């Protein structure tokens, strides 16, 4: 596993992708910091900069994750990985850790900013570093989603575009949800759409439409029962659900220096869930 990790890390820095990613993030941090902290707000709070930074993930996640599995599949080098004494979990783990390591470089650069700010005024270090930690953990979750998407295709361009679309959807999910009608029936149909999506996801992961259909039917039945019994519960529920689930809305807590354990638990859960999905998706390749 460590051999693969080293190889992955190396490949980021022999090609342009690793540098591109780091420069991109560092550049935008610099721009936003000089705009917000040194100009504009005149504040020593890096949270303001972090807030502006969140949209950067829309672009950098596809850059960093598109090649992870898609490239191996396109060049048939995945066959080498399967024939080596590394487990599928090890393969996914090594690749994901390499992605995180590349992501850690610009995050560490960010850690310098509060120190620089402290030359110019008082800095609340705890608050600053909680902001940066929130930034890192959110990145972990989004990158896990990107890695998973890369494992679904052998075309890097497709992987990048889909990842970008998903990031965009996640980024605007809250605003979209707010714009939706708040009636109970609307919520019900929105959840039904989610159930169908879950069913499709299950189908793509295990290629068994009986199981996919059964799980979707079960969820839909449960949903319908709750809807029949307590319709009032559904008023505005979908919007609330999206607000709770939104990766970016949770970010605002930590940006403001609020240590909210549930947010971190949420990010870690999303990360683990998508790493698990990736393992399943790679494993499934061998079965189909």
């Amino acid at each position, binding site marked *: 596993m*460590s*051999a*693969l990790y*080293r*190889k992955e890390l*190396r*490949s980021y820095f*022999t*090609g342009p992708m690793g540098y591109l990613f780091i420069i991109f993030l560092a550049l935008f941090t610099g721009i936003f910091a000089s705009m917000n902290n040194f100009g504009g707000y005149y504040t020593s709070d890096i949270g303001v900069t972090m807030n502006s930074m969140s949209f950067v993930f829309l672009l950098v996640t596809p850059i960093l994750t598109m090649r992870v599995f898609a490239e191996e599949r396109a*060049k*048939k*080098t*995945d*066959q*080498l990985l*399967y*024939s*080596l*004494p*590394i*487990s599928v979990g090890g393969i996914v783990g090594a690749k994901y850790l390499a992605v995180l390591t590349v992501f850690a470089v610009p995050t560490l650069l960010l850690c310098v900013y509060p120190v620089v700010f402290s030359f110019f005024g008082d800095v609340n270090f705890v608050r600053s570093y909680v902001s940066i930690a929130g930034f890192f953990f959110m990145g972990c979750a989004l990158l896990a989603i990107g890695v998973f998407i890369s494992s679904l295709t052998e075309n890097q361009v497709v992987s990048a575009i889909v990842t970008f679309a998903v990031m965009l959807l996640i980024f605007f999910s809250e605003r979209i949800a707010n714009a939706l009608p708040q009636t109970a029936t609307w919520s019900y149909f929105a959840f039904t759409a989610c159930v169908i999506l879950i069913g499709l996801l299950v189908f793509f992961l295990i290629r068994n439409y009986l199981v996919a259909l059964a799980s979707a039917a079960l969820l839909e039945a449960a949903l319908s029962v709750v809807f029949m019994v307590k319709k009032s519960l559904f008023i505005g529920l979908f919007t609330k659900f999206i607000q709770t689930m939104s990766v970016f809305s949770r970010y605002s807590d930590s940006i403001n220096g609020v240590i909210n354990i549930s947010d971190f638990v949420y990010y870690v859960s999303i990360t683990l869930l998508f790493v698990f999905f990736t393992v399943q998706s790679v494993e499934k390749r*061998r*079965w*189909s």
Partner: protein
Amino acid sequence: MIEVRNLVKKYGGFTAVKGISFKADGGKIYGFLGPNGAGKSTTMNIIAGCLAATEGEVLIDGHDVYKEPKEAKKHLGYLPELPPVYTDMTPNEYLTFVGRAKGLKGDKLKKEIARVSEKTGISDVSHKLIKFLSKGYRQRVGLAQAILGSPDVIILDEPTVGLDPKQIIEMRTLIRELGQEHTVFLSSHILSEISETCDYVMIISHGSLVASDTIDNLSRLMSGNVTKLTAVGNEKEITKALEGIQGITQIEVESRGRDSEITFRITSESEIKEKVFYALADIRTPITNITEDVMSLEDIFLKLTDDSAFDSSVYEEEKDDEEDGGEYTPLFTSDRDNKDNSDRDNKDNKEDETDEGGQDGEKTEDVSDEGKDGEVK
């Protein structure tokens, strides 16, 4: 050592591999032969752990590829159809990565890389990026990767595709060298390659193993122990002398040449050349030519993989055997009934075109052989 038990691979409704079983021992080269789409690559992919089988199991040195993948894959080197090389690395870096993944470290790793680079002839290019290497060199780098760490089992999927004639010869020499210490599996649809390099042939057709034996055995069994004898003498006397030999089941006169030269076609249960020699020596009849009528690998291959010459009952019987005994029994070795069946089927379907052609070929060969004999005498 490698053991494959009742391997089945289904893609949706299509069955690519239909219950392949075999056992392979060390120090031999096994050739997988089959037409395109017969299931060679699928079978190799399954053995190497790149694909999961729908049914059946693969044991490498006693370790199941699915249940103990790490242990099993330590004893395995695999070169897929396309060499799985990272083009942004140099061969040295690439082999370092593979070596580390195989658990080699430090000096041992360096020595091992030097050894395989030397063996595959890539030492000269070890610091060039793989993307600048030609197809032949990439293939060699792929092979170097497979033999790194001296695994017991080496699987090579069409290793000579894309190589120039000189490289092909080098590759074959290398494979033969490897076969001395390792169990080597080699797939190809080039018959001469298999007959030159392999000790043992497995012919796959439509996802089933239709034959597996040494080339010599296959040739003999497929042609049904037919000996061609040309002698100068009295037909009745010779026939009488031949009838006295044990094991002969049928004697036919194939042709009568000039100067009372007669060619017989003798079907027997075992090898009879020596007995025939002494029998004819007793009646003082000179033998001008005696050959076993063997089939070339081409003939065997065409016979076994030709759809029209197929009788499914042969396979049914074979499968039953496997299920009952649970052990691998090579087709065409022990079970004479099977062989006779397939022979008959083949004749039914193909006698008109192939057999005659074959005989003509034999005749010309005989003549040329005679000429040589004459010169020697």
